[in-house]
């Protein structure tokens, strides 16, 4: 097989985790070119929200990404609060931060589960999903929904925490922390997993910055940039946590960064519960914001996500631009894919944590 051939992986393919197409040119088993094609799941989200009032957009923002819906609705509310120029009650900020971190853990667990299937181990999938269920149950208790929470509101959160919430969260965290070791035993300490991830999809710090990688994928290349630390929102500047980085820049380092982030998230949630003050959780907001623009960016589980909002003084946004971390990470994927084997495609793309809902919008 000296001839090169193009292979279409997608839009219907087990590797894709959604609807997108990866065209790769292979020479035997080695990839010589790769071309990601998105657009199969385009809903016109940015245009659609121009016809919705400000509160109506929150559940729609939830649906940008099924994996980490909370961070997206939170990001939207953060942008809207900056347009409205209102301050959020402190208790609401603590609840939000705790929820964001719970969402981060459950998103990372789902990512781990997906990586498990991509690499051929259903055990990792089921263990990851089992652990994720703990956090979904907490969110059900809090706001009544498992995946699309619709819990953040402009100016606070929907409702106060239920009476036993703190105790339940502590209990879940106590259960979950030792179980991270089990997941690591399945991945880190399994030689085949290391064979599949170490030195695969390498990208160095300079390339990662030039290609606009963000989030765990960039931190795995040794760049210490976490918006929770460097552009703090909510109450992150009051909390004590580490930004997890690794220097290797390969799939294994990306995996390690995410596993470490789960531990850090557990730490953050504990601190939030400790420091959580009493008080109101929501303020009443006006219907129409003043004219103006606002930018909000947060550290999504997948990277840096940003919303730019233009208000023209009516009750509907004039324009809402979304910067999805995955869209940029995806366009950086050819740099990681080239030169690797075709078996590495699921490993590399799986570790990138693809979510097409936010990529295509």
């Amino acid at each position, binding site marked *: *097989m000296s001839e090169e*051939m193009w*292979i279409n*992986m997608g839009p219907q*393919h*087990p*590797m894709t985790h959604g609807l997108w197409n990866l065209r790769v040119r*292979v020479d035997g*088993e080695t990839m010589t070119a790769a071309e990601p094609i998105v657009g199969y799941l385009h809903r016109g989200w940015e245009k659609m929200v121009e016809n919705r009032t400000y509160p109506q957009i929150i559940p729609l923002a939830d649906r940008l990404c099924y994996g980490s819906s909370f961070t997206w609705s939170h990001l939207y509310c953060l942008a809207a609060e900056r347009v409205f120029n209102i301050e959020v009650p402190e208790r609401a900020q603590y609840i939000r931060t705790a929820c964001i971190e719970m969402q981060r853990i459950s998103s990372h667990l789902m990512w781990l589960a997906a990586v*498990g*299937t*991509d*690499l*051929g*181990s*259903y*055990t*990792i999938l*089921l*263990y990851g999903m*089992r652990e994720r269920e703990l956090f979904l149950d907490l969110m059900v208790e809090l706001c009544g929904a498992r995946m699309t929470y619709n819990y953040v509101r402009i100016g606070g959160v929907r409702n106060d925490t239920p009476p036993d919430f703190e105790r339940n969260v502590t209990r879940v965290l106590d259960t979950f922390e030792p179980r991270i070791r089990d997941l690591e035993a*399945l991945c880190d300490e*399994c030689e*085949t*997993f290391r*064979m*599949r991830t170490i030195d695969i999809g390498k990208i160095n710090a300079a390339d990662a910055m030039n290609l606009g990688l963000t989030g765990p994928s960039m931190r795995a290349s040794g760049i210490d940039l976490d918006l929770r630390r460097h552009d703090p929102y909510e109450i992150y500047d009051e909390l004590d946590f580490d930004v997890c980085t690794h220097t290797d820049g390969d799939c294994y380092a990306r995996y390690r960064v995410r596993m470490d982030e789960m531990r850090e998230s557990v730490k953050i949630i504990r601190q939030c519960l400790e420091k959580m003050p009493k008080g109101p959780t929501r303020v009443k907001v006006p219907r129409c914001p003043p004219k103006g623009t606002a930018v909000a960016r947060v550290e999504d589980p997948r990277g840096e996500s940003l919303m730019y909002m233009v208000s023209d003084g009516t009750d509907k946004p004039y324009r809402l631009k979304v910067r999805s971390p995955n869209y940029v990470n995806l366009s950086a994927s050819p740099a990681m894919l080239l030169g690797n*084997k*075709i*078996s*590495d*495609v*699921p490993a590399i793309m*799986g570790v990138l944590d693809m979510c097409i809902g936010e990529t295509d919008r």
Partner: protein
Amino acid sequence: METLYTVLQSLSEWLLGVIAWLIDWTRLGFLSGIADWVETEPVVTFLTTLLVAAIYFITLFMFGLCFIWMERKFMGRFMDRRGTQVGVLGFFQNFADGIKTMLKEHIIPKAADKGLFEMASFAIIATSAMLLGCIPLSPQFYVINVDLALLLGIAIFSFAPFGILIGGWSSNNKFSLIGGMRAAAQLIALEIPILMVVVSVVVMTGSLSFIGIVGWQQDNIWLAFPLFIGLITFFVAAIGESERVPFDLPEAEAELVEGWQTEYGGFRWGLIMLSDYLRAYIMCALVTMLFLGGWDGPDFVWAEIWYLAKTFIVFFFFIWVRVAMVRIRTDQILTLGWRRLLPLSIVNLLIAIALKTAEVF
């Protein structure tokens, strides 16, 4: 059970006697010659052999189904779920699957090479079924026992890669082509270590028939103890030969949809899946036979029970390895085959020769 053949022989003698009596009873003179012929020795032998073969195949197909069931249930428990639920302990799931695949439409891709496409599946299924005949369950319960049964078995076993390669090629699909190439490369890479280990067993026992090999082990020692390296090598290669995780790259569903089986559907696919499990059973049987003393065991139950128990235990290890690992890559499997398993098997062979020349056994 040792009188299975004789029981069946008397049964067929009785049956044929009844037939001869019926023919005589018609009092048609020209049939009397046939009545005499029916009761002759060759006819009785033929019918007995046919009955034995039928019973044998039905038994072994049931074992194949048991293997599927066992894998489903054990994998379920390994992964903290329940496994199949249809019927008694989920055993009828296999029959449900069989009926389902049987009722499906048989589709041949338009651009496929029709003759080869059909032939490949039959080649794989037929060789797998043929192999069953070579494996005795006990010194009395077997279909054929040629002196070179081991060589015959290995020879038939190594025919499957051609079927897979042809099937992958003739499907006219890029995924199945790559899958077929991978399968051929992998099976050939692992065939050599297997043969080397088999040679060491032959050197030790001085016999090429299974009954002779197990007989030697009954007289002396289970070969697992002197040839432990060989057991490990054979076990790893056996997992690869039966195309199971972590060596299931020919059908790596993450990157290659379903590998070389992508275009097969309906009952052919069902039979290919069944033959996969039959091949797994054969590999387990070989491990049992060559290293674990076959049907050797205390005398309080039938020899067949010992043999099957050992086979199922070996298969349990297959499942265990499957749940604990992720799939590895083609180049890694080839490296493993040629650089690790082959030297190990040669070391094993040297040990066997040394033990034989030192006349330890």
